[in-house]
């Protein structure tokens, strides 16, 4: 069980958070313009990386804010935490 440094509250146990999957997948602004394949790419396709992964997390049992986490999925080491809308740290 890892510790996440919520950018609004500070370090808290993982049990206070829920993971929202891969980060930086923006909802298309004009879905109607997209082909089935393009929409499916947004809707279903996720990387599920072994290694450094950019993820969305929600401090659901805390401030309820969403933010981004850079986590190494092979050892759960968290390399960076940053707010929604902020630039991701260089990969």
């Amino acid at each position, binding site marked *: *069980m*890892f*510790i996440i440094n919520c950018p609004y509250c500070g370090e808290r*146990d993982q049990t206070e958070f*829920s993971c*929202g999957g891969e980060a930086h997948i*923006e*909802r*298309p602004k*004009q*879905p*109607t313009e*997209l082909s*089935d394949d393009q*929409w*499916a790419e947004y*809707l279903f396709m996720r990387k599920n990386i072994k290694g450094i992964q950019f993820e*969305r997390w*929600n401090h*659901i049992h805390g401030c*309820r*804010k*969403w933010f981004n986490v850079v986590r190494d999925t092979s*050892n*759960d*080491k968290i390399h960076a935490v940053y707010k*929604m*809308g902020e630039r991701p740290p260089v990969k």
Partner: protein
Amino acid sequence: MSNNLRINKNNFIDQTVRISFKFNGKKLFGYKGDTLASALLANNIHLVGRSFKYHRPRGIMTCGSEEPNAIVQVAKDPALTDPNVRATEIELYEGLEAFSQNCWPSVNFDIGGINNFLSPLLPAGFYYKTFMWPASFWEKYEFFIRHSAGLGKSPTKPDQDLYDHQYLHCDVLIIGGGISGILSAKLSAEKGLNTILIDDKSYLGGSTIYQDDDIFKINSETSNLWLKNQIEKLKKIPNLTIKNRTSVAAFHGYNYLLARENLTDHLGAHERKGKIRQRLLKIRAKKVVIATGAIERPLIFSNNDRPGIILSSSIKKYIDYYGVKTGENISLFTNNDSAYETAISLNKIGVKVKVIIDIRENPSSILSEKIEKIGIKILRGHTITNTDGYKRIKSIDVMKLSKDGENVVGNKTTYKCDCLGISGGWTPMVHLFTQSGGKLKFRNNDNVFIPDENKTPSEQISVGSSNGDFELDDVINNTIKKIKIFLNLDKNDYENLDIKCSKEKQKRNIWLLPSNKPISKSKPFLDFQNDSTAKDVKLALREGFKSIEHVKRYTTTGMGTDQGKLSNMHALGIIADTTGTNMGELGTTTFRPPYTPLTFGAIVGRNVGEFFDHTRRTAIHDWHVENKAEFENVGQWKRPWYFPKNGETMYQAVQRESKAARESAGILDASTLGKIDIQGEDASEFLNRVYTNAWSKLGIGKCRYGLMLNEDGMVYDDGVTTRLGENHYIMTTTTGGAANVLSKLEDYLQTEWPELNVYLTTVTDQYSTMSICGPNSKKIIKKIIPSLDLSDESFPHMSFKNTKIDNVNCRIMRISFTGEHSYEINVQSNYAKDVWEKCIEAGKEFNITPYGTETMHLLRAEKGFIITGQDTDGTLTPSDLQMDWIIGKKKYDFIGKRSLYRSDTIREDRKQLVGLLTDDPKEVLEEGAQLVESLEKPIDMLGHVTSSYFSPNLNKSIALAVVRSGKKLKGKKLIVPMENKNINVTITDTVFYDKENKRLNA
């Protein structure tokens, strides 16, 4: 032979306090400080159990948590009995009652022992191979397996003990109270760090605390006395917490550890009353020091499992710590120096050591020289080829090893003995290190896996013998050196200690010792608890198993309650030897938590019974209880299910309630519906985006039903939302969906649409809701709020009024989930019960009938209204539900819109919601029942029933179902095949009652 093997010299057992206990019904005595195992051995009882598969007699083999054989059932009481307790760990208390497991009718005469003679028929994978065919025989096999397998009996009554959880935080956690743990704890605590020291024993000091010999000295004191002084000093340091009788079960990431603290398991029954039995510690440590030590390995030779064969270091502990002789005529068999220490201890108390068999050719060291001075015979380069004795070892056969160690040569000599100490070297306890994610490296010269310092996942170090240091000087010096760096320490007292100890000169290891008989005729046991032998491992390899994980499962080696603490290394060694692989490349099987078994009690702590989960009750709950409601769990909510009168069945009550609601008036507590307060200048735009229909033009004071989809186009939730003001809405959600809907909406607001100025607040608990429906509902509302204009012009269907009931502010919506003219009253929850009682009082003359969820479901089914989660399951689009009318076709976008015309969602043969009528109107279908067109095999499943009731208002059975291409099948006859009959049904419209919606304005 005398039955009392207790000696009088020792410092650890309180021989002034005699304790009586029972083993297999026989009354025996021991002393305070004994374990059950040491007390049994003092009574000359070695035979304590039968092995799992062959039911061979098995004796106490170790003195710790690695014990594979001495697994007992403790206590008789069906609520308190505890299976699979290691006799080597449980401390003796007055009145302790223990029983052998896995034997019937008794440990001395066991019917399953016949399996031993059948053992050629029970090789590795026997169960897999034999019990597979024919499949129809499985039930018979299962009966046989269940009766012959299993260790111990589960309690049959609820556990009456108390358990607890506790969170601990510290700078440094030290696991293991042996010499390296003690030194680490002292240095850490002296530095002022908040330190916790955990040890699974009742005392501190590990094996050094009874290492009492001139060979082992620290600063000219014997090692045990020196350590004792250190422990005395340690206990005085204020910022140190010592947890005895505490075993770390799991080491997770980020230095999060779980440990089980035993608080009363060592106490007599009368001392336990009212106390917490075990506490699960949840520890978050900044730094962790693993000092868990090492356990001795057995040696693998034929018939190495007889009672009386004990690990040599355990024999030493039984003498030096417990003051118990494990026999009168002991021989030792070793591949390393530690057996020599045991021989010295035995010699001191006058037990004759007949012979030490050492597989090494030239094991000369300070220890071996001392042994020779004493005059104990050492057979170098020899091995034991066989043993004899059924319920207790009687003799050993010894032969010389060939130079390469693969064969035996010369003649065999037989030595009589009543106890054999065996030592196959030491295995560092790296379980916790690997659980935390650490990787191991293999040290070839003494065949050990040790932690790889460069592959350590968190702030932790391993010290002492758990790190592969086995000799006193190495243990101390390396621990000090590592701790100094780990904790950034300055100079300390321990840096220039004068340490004297023996150093081992020669090492030799043979995983499977050779015999003069072919392996097929021998029984070299590897896993004593699961009865797997070296033969089984070799057979598995011959049959093509290569992965160690597969060999483990196929042979069940290492799968007992001891998790292979004794057997795993030898299994790996034999696999490596047989396949010609290096052990380091082979790797180990996975070490999984818990390190030692945990009780379910400790895992759940106080979260039992009514504390298992939160219970949510509406503000009107007490009224429901007073009025004899039966309750239904809906998530965490307790909802009235139905209100039986005069002994009615559920069916009778629901029929009565449903009729009353349509004929006069009904009232429902709908407080559990999720309520989200939505405010902000973009609230209308926000609703436009989250619901499928249009919201911008909804007037203030109006209500609208909305359907919410997932981005994949599937129906997610539904409910009525009311516009309270220009920028103010109140949304209702389903009871079960409330929390998820709020989270989903928050997600979109924060991450996709941060430009929207909208605030969401859950008010589910703050407002209570009661729904009054039926043709007389208007009259009832009129009585409660005479000033309110209830005309259709002023207060039409799907509109809302802010008003007061007496002095209580309330919101009244004219909305309906039953199809009847109805009102929903929302008040602050503090007033809810009062307002509810007013409604009941006002409704008396109209026979107002409280109804529960079951009647609600029936009434809405008559109208064909869906319940998300019952009629939908996350695979249905609005169109599948025949709700195309709710899609805002002109809307540019909303959640899920694009998915509504994906190639898959526009398929015409999707499952679609339909109504069903049974040919026999009295026949009520079962929810979940399958629908088919014909009974010709193969039968094509077309769909299933989602909702089904007998409608008292229509006097016939009605149902909703999802059916492939259902929309096109109106009028089609289908069959519902049941166990005893086939029910004929016809597909209909989904609305059964009042298709023209006349009653809404009645």
